[in-house]
């Protein structure tokens, strides 16, 4: 490390008085603490959403059998005698989707990594609005707890799918009201976070950190925040309208002459169920990119670091990213091809959907070409980032026949859809998030995670994930429909039913594979090998310009940025990484033997 100017360690603390435990670790306004709070909370939500799915998968593989272990603890309104009721299955389905999307993957990708990494990468001492940032976390937590506690409502939790289509959701038991209220909290929290990210990126960059010197991760967070600000208020409006339908007997989404459960609905109607779908998907399609773009950023960071060379086509990546952002607002109705919407409108949305696949292909192409000419180190984060490429590829490719109207007629609402978006969100986003956890863990806590158990976690998880999601594509081709409590009730499901056992046992294997991860995480927190200040010999400011873990205030003094984000293996430099903040004259010299990569 000699010759490379590393941050002086002192200084940062002097401007900030020592805080009490509560202000430092609980009601903290420090972006790093808030990021870690978000990370732990969203990992817990991911675990709870996953547990719900295990219950559903058991029912699908063994319909009508007693749920093992958990079954006898469930009340009779959910599973009398340990056998799941269809109402409970629908509740689990709706809550699995809601929790995974809004309380798991998005907060982990956007709020956890965004909060922790973004200010560090742009050389800022904190977010632009630290108090708003803290508020965002606590509102999120309230929303999440409300969402989970809705299982205790009379009639159980929301059970109309995570999409909550009206009029089914308008007429559903009270759990749906709780869903809408909880969503309002979650959306408010997201908006606070997004405003913060946009302001911070625009105003708080270090000297010399021009837009094209921003790491790709920051670009991704920035575009994501814009999507959130523009798309989420629409769903918030929609949620309030549906809430009014339910509690104030309004008629926004209730058509006339409705009969429900054999009796005419008291509201006179006159509303339109399709309006809800438009409002919902106007958010929920950009939301798909909110689930994905931060993860693109993580993969870019890890790939550049793991291949020890600049990312291929940085400008092209940024252009693709911005195109995805813009196009994501004009594809929403591809979820509604068969809704009864005018059929010529669908043509517009088919074309835009095909167009948005182009920048996505560009991103993936750039990532693949980044491998070429590299010196690829198979570290744990790098394994996850490499696995992202082909597996997200499957997710993207299987989107083609769904976004294309004639083939969607057959595939719509089948398990093919489920397989497609789980390939995108699990083997895409979640895998990238794991890469991010292994990559930034040493920076967050100053200690490294165990390499062997990390690799066990990787291999078993990837095999199990494919065991769950690939059979879904096959079942989807056989016409098996989604959201079926008991698949044996329909004749056309019967031939491929055996695959449900494969999927269920793969899901159980995936659960087992998380045990080494959880243990590794907590044991490494206290007992892990001490990390150096730049644990991966990286170039970006988050890794190179501050200690591990960074103190309150992050950097000692002001930084000046001299170069782009991924200057690895620059000829004429002494080391194969050239940090963004180190002046040129301190870097030049004969390149040394490559330092042994700590894996």
């Amino acid at each position, binding site marked *: 490390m000699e010759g490379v100017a590393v941050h002086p360690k002192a200084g940062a603390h002097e401007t900030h008085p020592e805080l009490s435990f509560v202000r430092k670790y609980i009601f903290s306004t420090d972006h790093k603490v808030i990021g870690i709070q978000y990370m732990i909370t969203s990992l817990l939500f991911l675990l709870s959403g996953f547990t719900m799915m295990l219950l559903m998968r058991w029912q699908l593989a063994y319909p009508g059998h007693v749920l093992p272990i958990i079954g006898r603890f469930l009340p009779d309104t959910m599973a009398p005698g340990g056998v799941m009721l269809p109402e409970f299955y629908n509740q689990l*389905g709706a809550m699995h989707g809601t929790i995974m999307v809004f309380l798991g993957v998005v907060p982990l990708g956007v709020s956890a990594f965004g909060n922790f990494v973004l200010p560090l990468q742009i050389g800022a001492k904190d977010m632009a609005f630290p108090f708003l940032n803290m508020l965002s976390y606590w509102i999120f937590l309230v929303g999440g707890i409300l969402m989970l506690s809705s299982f205790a409502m009379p009639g159980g939790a929301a059970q109309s799918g995570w999409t909550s289509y009206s009029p089914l959701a308008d007429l559903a038991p009270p759990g749906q009201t709780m869903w809408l209220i909880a969503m309002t909290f979650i959306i408010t929290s997201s908006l606070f976070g997004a405003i913060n990210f946009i302001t911070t990126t625009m105003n708080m960059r270090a000297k010399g950190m021009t837009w094209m010197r921003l790491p790709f991760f920051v670009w991704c967070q920035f575009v994501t925040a814009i999507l959130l600000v523009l798309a989420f208020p629409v769903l918030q409006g929609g949620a309030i309208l549906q809430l009014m339908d339910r509690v104030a007997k309004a008629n926004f989404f209730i058509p006339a002459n409705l009969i429900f459960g054999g009796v005419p609905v008291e509201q006179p109607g006159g509303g339109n169920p399709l309006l809800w779908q438009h409002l919902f998907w106007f958010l929920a399609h950009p939301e798909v990119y909110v689930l994905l773009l931060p993860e693109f950023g993580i993969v870019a960071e890890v790939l550049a670091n793991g*291949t020890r060379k600049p990312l291929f086509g940085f400008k092209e990546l940024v252009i693709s990213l911005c195109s995805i952002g813009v196009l994501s607002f004009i594809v929403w109705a591809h979820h509604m091809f*068969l809704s*009864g919407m005018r059929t010529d409108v669908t043509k517009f949305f088919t074309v835009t959907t*095909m167009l948005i696949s182009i920048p996505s292909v560009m991103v993936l192409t750039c990532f693949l070409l980044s491998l070429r000419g590299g010196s690829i*180190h198979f570290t744990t984060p790098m394994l996850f980032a490499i696995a992202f*490429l082909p597996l997200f590829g499957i997710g993207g490719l299987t989107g083609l026949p769904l976004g294309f109207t004639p083939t969607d007629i057959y595939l719509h609402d089948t398990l093919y859809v489920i397989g497609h978006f789980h390939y995108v969100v699990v083997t895409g986003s979640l895998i990238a998030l794991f890469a991010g956890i292994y990559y930034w863990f040493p920076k967050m806590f100053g200690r490294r995670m165990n390499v062997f158990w990390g690799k066990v976690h990787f291999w078993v998880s990837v095999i199990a994930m494919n065991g769950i999601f690939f059979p879904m594509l096959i079942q989807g081709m056989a*016409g098996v429909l989604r959201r079926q409590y008991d698949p044996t009730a329909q004749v056309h499901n019967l031939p491929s039913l055996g695959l449900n056992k494969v999927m269920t046992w793969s899901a159980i294997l995936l659960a087992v594979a998380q045990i080494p991860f959880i243990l590794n995480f907590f044991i490494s927190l206290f007992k892990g090998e001490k990390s150096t200040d730049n644990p991966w010999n990286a170039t970006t400011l988050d890794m190179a310009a501050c200690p591990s873990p960074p103190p309150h205030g992050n950097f000692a003094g002001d930084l000046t940025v001299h170069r782009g984000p991924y200057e690895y293996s620059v000829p004429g430099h002494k080391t194969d990484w050239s940090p963004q903040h180190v002046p040129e004259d301190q870097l030049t010299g004969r390149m040394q033997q490559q330092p042994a990569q700590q894996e």
Partner: protein
Amino acid sequence: MTPDQLYGWWLPARASTYAADLDRQLDVFHVAMGLIFVCWGAFMIYCLIRYRARPGVPAVYSHTGIVKSMIPDGIVLAFELFMIFVIGLPVWAHVMETFPEEKKANVAAVIAQQFAWNIHYPGPDGLFGRRDIKLISSGNPIGLDDADPAAKDDLVSVNQFHVPLGKPTLVYLSSMDVIHSFNVPAFRTKQDATPGMRVRIWFEPIMTGTFEIACAQLCGLGHYRMRGDVIVHTQEEFDAWLAKKQAEKAEL
């Protein structure tokens, strides 16, 4: 065909005129997707082996230009535009936008409810009788108004959709309560039935037999068991069935 012959691990048997058109597109997509995936995968594996870290071999420092990496994007874009404009839109127009004439088709209304498919046949006069939700009872699931002359010859069946072979069936699809979706996998037919809307769909079977109707849109706790059958008869059998049902109705 028996269910074993109709349904399997992949696409069901093709039992309607447009099934083959739609399947061909699924085939083209899956072949293309397979090719793209194999090319990507092969390139990735090559890179992982060829460029693995070795002592003394540094990475190649380069900032490559934009043009070369656009080639795969260009190929994919060309393929997609070809699929949309040359293959996709004509089939979409055929299946979803071009309807058979009422006079030449077998006409019926499908009225979905939790958790059943009500089939309403207009009878020989070709007119659907008036319906009123106040008249709904266990014996009259769709609330048909017998006072209406047009309703006199109407027939209603539940979950059993009888259609003739050799001519298209035109369906007016609606729902009484929540959103359902009319799905006949063997016909490749699927369309949401949304309350407050009445949409047209059509299909023309190419074989006799019994084909499952499933509900494809979550409609409540009984969604999974909301099923019915399309029963395809020869024209003679169908006419005989109609006559028998008319006679039964007259006796009442």
